[in-house]
């Protein structure tokens, strides 16, 4: 599918989606509430995006952005889906029932960025200690002892 066809297809799924073609792949920004249905349609619909190869979050100081890199093992086309979240109340629905790799990746984002994934089956800290305070990969995180500053 060409980028134009994908844009048309995603617009039919999520009318509020905005597109950015400056990068290597097509970037689609959707509303957080629209993310789950869009993702489910991309997985099962005509795109058949069965491979979620990267899931992460970026702190832009004004907001958090969830970044999902999707690809398919059949046609090998990649697209990037993004959703902007409020820093104070970062909530988004999980995608781990669509791609099971998301279960661990979302747990990592949960502890590092403080994003709450609704309907996640097992949302606990994975890497940090249970009593760790704060979200280390956010830009305003300050660790009084171990902070790296150059």
């Amino acid at each position, binding site marked *: 599918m060409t980028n134009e066809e994908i844009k048309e297809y995603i617009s039919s799924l999520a009318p509020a989606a905005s597109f950015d073609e400056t990068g290597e792949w097509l970037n689609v920004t959707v509303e957080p509430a629209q993310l789950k249905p869009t993702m489910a349609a991309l997985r099962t619909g005509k795109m058949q995006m069965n491979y979620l190869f*990267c899931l992460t979050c970026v702190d832009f100081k004004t907001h958090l952005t969830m970044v999902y890199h999707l690809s398919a093992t059949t046609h090998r086309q990649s697209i990037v889906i993004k959703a902007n979240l409020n820093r104070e109340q970062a909530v988004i629905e999980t995608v781990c029932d669509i791609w*099971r790799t998301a279960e661990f990746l979302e747990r990592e984002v949960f502890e590092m960025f403080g994003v709450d994934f609704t309907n996640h089956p097992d949302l606990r800290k994975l890497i940090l200690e249970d009593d760790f305070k704060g979200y280390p990969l956010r830009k305003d995180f300050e660790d009084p002892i171990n902070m790296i500053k150059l």
Partner: protein
Amino acid sequence: MYNQTEIIKDTSELGAEGELVINMGPQHPATHGVLHLVVTLNGETIKKIEPHLGYIHRSIEKMCESLTYRQFIYVTSRMDYLSSHINNLGCALLVEKGMAIEVPDRAKYVRVILSELTRIASHELWLGAMAMDLGAFTPFFYAFREREMITDIMEDTCGARLTMNYIVPGGLMYDIHPDFQKKVKAFITQFKSKVNEYEDLVTNNVIFQSRTKGVGILSAEDAISYGCTGPVARASGVSCDIRKIYPYEVYDKVEFEEVLETAGDSFARYMVRVKEMNQSIRIIEQLIDNIPEGDFVGKTKNVLKLPKGEFYTRVETARGELGVFVVSEGGTTPHRIKFRSPGFSNLSVLNHIAAGSKIGDLMASMGTLDLVIPDIDR
């Protein structure tokens, strides 16, 4: 990470008849690192495996945010320390792609040869350690005999035997050692004459086969859903070799096969790695005599600044697909860097493939996933 008091609390709260929670690790000889698995057992049958990570979490991603594009490459050697050249290559490729830096052919050839040598060294270590986990001690010495030759080549080339740093944005740090080609050829001759010994010792061994065949079966569909890559996914018949699908450097100029197996069990994963070593030798043979003369590093600015935007590159490490995702604000340091490490995704499948099997089979399932803990924790 798991709290010690909670483990005890969990055990008493479970209460189900005959269920037992045991801690495997963080110090366990078969995990080859500090991996902590909380295994729920019913008799000898595994009910559930919960990995607890973070014992060697060094916050590499956060650290990289305050390092420049020349500096952050060195940290990545400490992620998957058995694929350090390939990790460095992934980061160098990202900077080169972002800044459109020309890399001389000589550097490209040497980079691929080093990547393949690294892959063989990694698979050799895995072969020895994995056989040892299953109770065969001898293959360890055989594997390390050949691996030693590679570490010697690495020492000549870049001064280190482990956590090598040689690949920089634009090419190589300095030119190859005058004996490089001679030593690599000596290694190829040695490896080819000895590789049959692995087949005799391990592959055709009845005990090894009966301990690995049909153990830890992973279907192709699940491998994709769990994001498995590398030999783990290829043993299930998923074609995922980055060197074939998205060729980088000179991989599109050399002939080699992507090794695929269909059984998806531990033995298939073993076979993929052994066959991959032969393919790596094939790649090195095609390149070693044809290293072009010329510069070993392209022209770069002293201060590297990536343009504003997002960049993603991927390389095939010994464990699978390593993705480097950088968000740049146009400065000298990345705004955010994410390493999509192959080990992290491969570990997440452990509960799926080992639940329902016997505790003794866990060694085979886990061993053939080829986990490197620093790669998972980062």
